[in-house]
């Protein structure tokens, strides 16, 4: 790791000022991605501004039925929060199926949203990579791409967004609150994650020194009946090949409300709007679930190595809808191996 200087911020305003006035400064929160990438020389700030003492750790339910999550709340604390578990089981499940117990104790919610991709070409600090060094090309397009994205890709980048909880938050229309050199801002979470297009180094709309202060999840009654399904190469402590965050409400055999987003298959947490549109008003039957899944994946552009994800994603979507329409997806605790392929 290159030499760095360190500064511990005591209030949000001075933290924002310290970073926004110095292009070579970055915030440091849980460090689970950042310290790793510093050590590999993928990130090269001169100075770290430690924000862990800032008062941004609260998790509180809103009177309307939503929840406000401080940016520095740790993944484990959010997952264990009774309000989150009751109102948004898919958030708790997505968190507990991510990383390991140790990492969940360290990683902050804001940092989770900003975690960098797991593409090995991005992380090796050597290969051509448009995300790390704009204009150098994408090594994954013609390279090893088994874990890469099939939706939202461009010729410049096919890296998969790695977060689990962001998938649940996208399904729930969460908002990301920030404070920066130009004041406070609120982003719809779907607008917070950018498609790679021809500028894959731009992953979000934040300006340098703009700090995530919190995440607000609006009241979403359908979310009480929700599930996060994660399919991966081993039963635990692994990134998703495919994941589905879904909430479902069925009235008299007809789908009255549905929320769905996909992880592991796209360059951003992928709101499955086409599937949702197809399912609203549809009867609860497998053929319709399969058709919704097919519609959602119709634009997939796989590589020869990750073509299996197109089929796997469709099966995962059907499985989640089966589970939720059975009345068994009641937001119970995620069982061990719940995400393993069957």
């Amino acid at each position, binding site marked *: *790791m290159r030499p760095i200087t*360190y*500064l511990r911020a005591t209030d949000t305003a001075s933290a924002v000022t310290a970073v926004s006035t110095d292009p070579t400064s970055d915030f440091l929160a849980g460090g*689970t991605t950042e310290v790793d990438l510093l050590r590999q020389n993928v990130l090269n700030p001169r100075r770290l501004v430690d924000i862990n003492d800032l008062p941004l750790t609260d998790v509180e339910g809103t009177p309307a039925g939503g929840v406000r999550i401080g940016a520095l709340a740790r993944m484990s604390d959010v997952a264990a929060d009774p309000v989150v578990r009751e109102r948004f089981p898919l958030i708790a499940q997505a968190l507990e199926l991510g990383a390991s117990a*140790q990492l969940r104790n360290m990683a902050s919610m804001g940092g989770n949203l900003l975690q960098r991709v797991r593409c090995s070409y991005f992380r090796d600090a050597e290969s051509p990579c448009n995300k790390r060094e704009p204009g150098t090309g994408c090594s994954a397009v013609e390279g090893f791409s088994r874990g890469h994205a099939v939706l939202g890709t461009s010729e410049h980048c096919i890296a998969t967004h790695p977060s689990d909880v962001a998938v649940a938050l996208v399904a729930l229309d969460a908002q990301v609150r920030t404070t920066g050199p130009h004041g406070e801002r609120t982003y719809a979470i779907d607008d917070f994650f950018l498609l790679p297009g021809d500028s894959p180094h731009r992953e979000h709309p934040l300006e340098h020194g703009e700090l995530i202060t919190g995440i607000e999840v609006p009241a979403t009654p359908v979310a009480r009946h929700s599930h996060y399904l994660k399919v991966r190469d081993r039963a635990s*402590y692994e990134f998703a090949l495919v994941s589905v965050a879904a909430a479902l409400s069925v009235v008299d055999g007809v789908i009255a409300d549905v929320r769905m987003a996909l992880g592991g298959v796209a360059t951003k947490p992928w709101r499955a709007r086409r599937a949702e549109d197809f399912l609203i008003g549809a009867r609860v039957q497998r053929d319709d679930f399969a058709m919704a899944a097919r519609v959602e994946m119709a634009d997939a552009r796989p590589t020869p190595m990750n073509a299996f994800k197109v089929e796997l994603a469709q099966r995962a979507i059907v499985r989640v809808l089966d589970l939720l329409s059975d009345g068994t997806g009641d937001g119970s605790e995620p069982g061990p191996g719940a995400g393993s392929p069957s």
Partner: protein
Amino acid sequence: MPVRGPALTEQDAALLEQGPGPVRVGLSVNGAKRTLDIEPRVSLLDALREHLHLTGAKKGCDQGTCGACTVWVDGRRALACLTLALTCEGHEITTVEGLSEDGELHEMQRAFIAEDAFQCGYCTPGQIMSAVALVQEGHAGDDDEIKEWMSGNICRCAAYPHIRAAIRAARDRM
């Protein structure tokens, strides 16, 4: 010795920029105050092993994937390799060396010996620190739960069945 960097602005002049050279830092480790001079880039793992000579926590991957460096920060299990030591000022660090009391091994340590829960032993300190926290968190209910909540500690000798046996035994005595 804390030094002020060149890029301080009016607003953050009140904040103290430290490094990049060695900085004096006070850490509380296993209940004792320790003072050391380290660069800001030094991980908690290197601070413990190379500076305080507490070599219980092991360096396996040094990138947060193996769990061999698991210690507690304020009683919560965390990875020392992905933690910068300077961020731990003001927090209580516990390593496997701090687990025994009055020369008596912790129940979990005794159970690991009794159940033969290791072969090469390299992952064992991390396994034990994780396992004690697991029981305290209430996540050691059955084998499925133990598997899931211990998945951050890899054992390349694959002593997992014996590790689970040790955790079950210690759980019932803790």
